[in-house]
């Protein structure tokens, strides 16, 4: 066969180029959520609660959504916001207006698509839907309400409501929908399982008898349906411990303590990175004689390695709104992020201006590196005066 060597060299060059372009594309555009971070912020113009997007490559932030329910003049930010990536090109912003309705906005990133709005007028205790990350299955968004689970298709607007008292959370694999249900007539037994994204049917896999005392001040356990393991914070406030159970048997425990400080795990949930070798959550610590608490990231290795505390900012000792914090762990498990804006929403004076920021903690280093992206606190006093 006559060889066409120049053509073959050109085609091999095309092959090399294609591979290079593919690798570059996969490491950037295919996973924007690990390079761009959505976080609660304040609109610098109106002072309203907003959602901003931080680009870790350029180090720049942009405001992408401003909450319309926020009454900046009186400092009553009634709106609660949560944002999530739907896919590489769409961002979901959910806004709880008042207590009984919820608006969903789908913001396209690039392209010429319109912004979609889906209004849910009957969502009792709608702010509850924003406490935990949204479970997603293709175009379907799962929203937790008071005793009801609502599934919304953001492409078609189709809605399905199940009044089975199930609470959903996204699974570790990004596909499984985790379900949780308090057993009727008791608030001490809870079923953990999976939810069928099509029918919303709940399949219980494990029942947790809360015989462990205070479960980490509202910190939600982490359930892994693949292994049947459940990770939870148990014990009294001053004697908390991480517990890993499987098939009703305690597989691992370790006490959460640091010297004489009073450590409280404030969650709101427990994250496991892809390696599943440690638990990530938030903590507060109050030293004797201090009126403020230290808030930061707590890493609890699932072995004998020491606990790692990364202090980030100060919060008043009487803070009770930790459920509203929206920390998140990147998909690759290397960065933990939290915005302190939630503290300023309820009470400006709860937050020092210097502490109002998005904090990104690189957890893949021996000494965590903290990137602080400042957020400007609105110039409104707690009593509503400018």
């Amino acid at each position, binding site marked *: *066969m006559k*060889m066409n*060597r120049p053509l*073959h*060299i050109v*085609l*091999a*060059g*095309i*092959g*090399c180029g*294609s*591979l290079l372009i*593919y*690798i570059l*594309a*996969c*490491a*950037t555009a*295919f*996973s924007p*959520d*690990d390079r761009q971070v959505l976080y609660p912020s304040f609109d610098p113009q109106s002072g309203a609660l907003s959602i901003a997007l931080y680009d870790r490559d350029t180090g720049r932030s942009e405001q992408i959504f401003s909450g319309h329910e926020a009454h900046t003049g009186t400092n009553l930010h009634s709106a609660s916001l949560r944002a999530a990536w739907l*896919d*590489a*090109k769409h961002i979901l912003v959910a806004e709880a207006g008042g207590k009984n309705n919820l608006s969903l906005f789908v913001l396209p990133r690039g392209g010429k698509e319109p912004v979609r709005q889906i209004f849910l007028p009957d969502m009792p205790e709608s702010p509850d839907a924003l406490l935990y990350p949204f479970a*997603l299955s*293709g175009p379907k968004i799962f929203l937790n309400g008071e005793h009801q689970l609502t599934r919304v298709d953001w492409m078609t607007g189709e809605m399905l409501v199940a009044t089975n008292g199930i609470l959903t959370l996204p699974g*570790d*694999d*990004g*596909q499984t929908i985790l379900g949780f249900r308090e057993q009727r007539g008791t608030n001490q037994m809870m079923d953990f399982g999976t939810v069928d994204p099509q029918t919303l049917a709940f399949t219980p896999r494990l029942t947790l008898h809360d015989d462990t005392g205070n479960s980490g001040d509202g910190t939600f356990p982490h359930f*892994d349906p*693949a*292994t049947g393991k459940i990770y939870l914070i148990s014990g009294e406030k001053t004697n908390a411990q991480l517990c890993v159970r499987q098939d009703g048997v305690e597989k691992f425990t370790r006490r959460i303590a640091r010297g004489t400080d009073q450590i409280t795990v404030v969650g709101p949930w427990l994250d496991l990175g*892809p*390696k599943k070798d440690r638990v990530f959550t938030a903590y507060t610590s109050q030293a004797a004689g201090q009126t403020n608490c230290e808030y930061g990231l707590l890493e609890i290795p699932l072995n004998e390695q020491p606990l790692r505390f990364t202090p980030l900012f100060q919060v008043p000792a009487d803070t009770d709104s930790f459920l509203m914090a929206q920390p998140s762990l990147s*998909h*690759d498990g290397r960065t933990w992020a939290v915005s302190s804006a939630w503290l300023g929403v309820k009470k400006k004076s709860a937050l020092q201006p210097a502490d109002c920021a998005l904090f990104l903690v690189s957890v893949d280093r021996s000494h965590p590196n903290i990137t602080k992206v400042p957020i400007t606190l609105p110039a409104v006093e707690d009593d509503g005066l400018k």
Partner: protein
Amino acid sequence: MLEFLHPIFSWVCGQNLAHSWSPGGELLPCCQRCTGVYVGAFVAALLHLAWRPAPTPRWLWLNGAFLLFMVPSGFYWIPQNPELRCASGILFGFGLIAFLRLPLAGKNPPEKNSPAQIGGFAAALLVCLLLTPLLAENGNALAANFLGAATAGGALALAILVLANFFLALRWLVRRISRSESTTPA
């Protein structure tokens, strides 16, 4: 093994958890599409080693189409699920091996592909397209390790081919420069 592969593949894959499989609870070292690319490249490299297909025009067009299919898939111009993401990767992996092997085919490559060769390639591609998502979605930890090993093998095959092509290009360049220097009048 998978724990060892994770940091290595983080250099070439976004490792988007929402687009990654974890058979038997073991997270694969790269996303579904990259798993397809490297598993496809691994299988294709074995086939090329065993059968040395002839680079006929039809063969080149077919593999070129495999490469091009990545454009609408990668840019999400077509709706996709995990299986399709993986399939686009497998086709891309097959195309890459076919193109990268061309300069290394020697001076006398075979002239045409026998029906048995074509059938063998088609069957292997089909098995790869069916088995990879099946193992990834329904397999246990053993399947995860098998897929991890195939992924590493495919990445290794691609790295060797890219380096070999680079070496050939460098050698061609050096020869060209030395030839032009020897023909330049003093």
